[in-house]
């Protein structure tokens, strides 16, 4: 969860890879369909992430092992 943006990038990268493989062609119909379906699922996942994502705000506080990043509740904004 902490790295959902990394997941987004990875998902987008995988989506782009699926598109590139489909574009390259030379696949069986079954392979093409599988790639298409995988790509659709990845795109949906990306869109869901983009829709739901919210900026997370943290602040640095001195801790035992150096500075710690602590979430800030912004609801009072």
């Amino acid at each position, binding site marked *: 969860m*902490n*790295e*959902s*943006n*990394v997941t*987004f*990038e990875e998902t*987008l990268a995988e*989506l*782009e890879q*699926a*598109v590139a493989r*489909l*574009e390259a*062609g030379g*696949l*069986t*119909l079954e392979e*093409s*369909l599988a*790639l*298409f379906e995988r*790509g*659709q699922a990845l*795109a949906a996942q*990306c*869109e869901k*992430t*983009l829709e739901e*994502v*919210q*900026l*997370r*705000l*943290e*602040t*640095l506080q001195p801790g035992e092992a*150096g*500075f710690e*990043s602590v979430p*800030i509740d*912004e609801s009072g*904004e």
Partner: protein
Amino acid sequence: MGAMDAPTRWTVGEITRYVRRLFELDYRLQELEVEGEISDLRIPGSGHAYFTLKDTDAQLRCVMWRTAVQAQVRMPEHGEKVIARGRMGVYEASGQYQLYCDQLYPAGQGDLHARFEALKAKLEAEGLFDQDRKRPIPELPHVIGVVTSPSTAALQDVLNVLKRRYPLARVVLSPTTVQGDGAPPQIVAALEAINTQTDVDVVLLVRGGGSLEDLWCFNDERVARAVTASRIPVISGVGHEIDFTLADFAADLRAPTPSAAAELATPVTIDDLAEAVLENRRLLGEYLSGAVSENRRRLDQLAYTLQYLSPRGKIDSARQSIDQLSVRADSAMHRLLELRRAKLAGTRRALDAISPLSTLSRGYAIVSDQAGQVIGNAGNVSPGNLINVQLHRGRLTAEVIKQEVDNE
């Protein structure tokens, strides 16, 4: 052209333009500061400011364009001692030379300004501001560090921009005061603190607008050096558009305001990403139908090839061959039979020719004993024996009367 020639005659416009050109050619007049007291300050509807700078000896007419006026944190008032920055020029329409003023600051801060310039020159000479020291700003930052005061509008500005443009990021605030004498060490400490966070991709060093003194901590040598020393790329956004601090010069990227810093930190927005996803979705569909038609093409081709290679044709032609062959076989058999028949007749004739029966027809006879044994030797019978005689037509039974045996 000698000394005897009459003096050159000019039009007013010509001589005024010539004088104006003289001003422009003198580099000392193109960037200068003039200290004096403000008087006759007028700012009409155009927004440009017109005033006179005075000291005990003389007066100097000044004009300040609207953009420069608006960029002033504060416009000095009548009677205030100021330092005016700008260039000297000639306004042809009224034939007046005047100072085109870019910036006004209180005369008391003249020292401050000199210190700023000196420090800037020193750090510049050290290479702190070199372009090749500037690091690239990541396109898709995972974690954005913000060094500023938690309670300021600048932070809210930054957060609002980030929420709108790139809510995928995690923002880590490294709090510090950004005003006052105590600020520089705190800013340095906050920069160092954010640099302990290994996952931060870019740091925003921001502060909202304020007076020259308010922003002065960003001209501190320690702050400038801390910006340069930052392991993480730094985007500065201090004050307003016209405010250039040493921290700005030291930063990897200088933004005119805190909001602009947040924008520069997010070159790719969530809208761009959504568009990229959509585009990939579209390409998926396009390439799939491409793959389908490619497969259909292959299928068509294979079906055609298959038809071409089908055994039906062979079967048909084989069937025809069989028909033809059987016809040929029939006639061949027929001919063979004819041949045999003819040959048989010939053989029969030959056989007839050597048959004893035909010999008999010529008058010869075959003699045999009662047992049917052909008698070829007279010694084999005795007188009184009965013998059979086969003639060409019919048989006789006879009795041996006499015998003569040949001695061999």
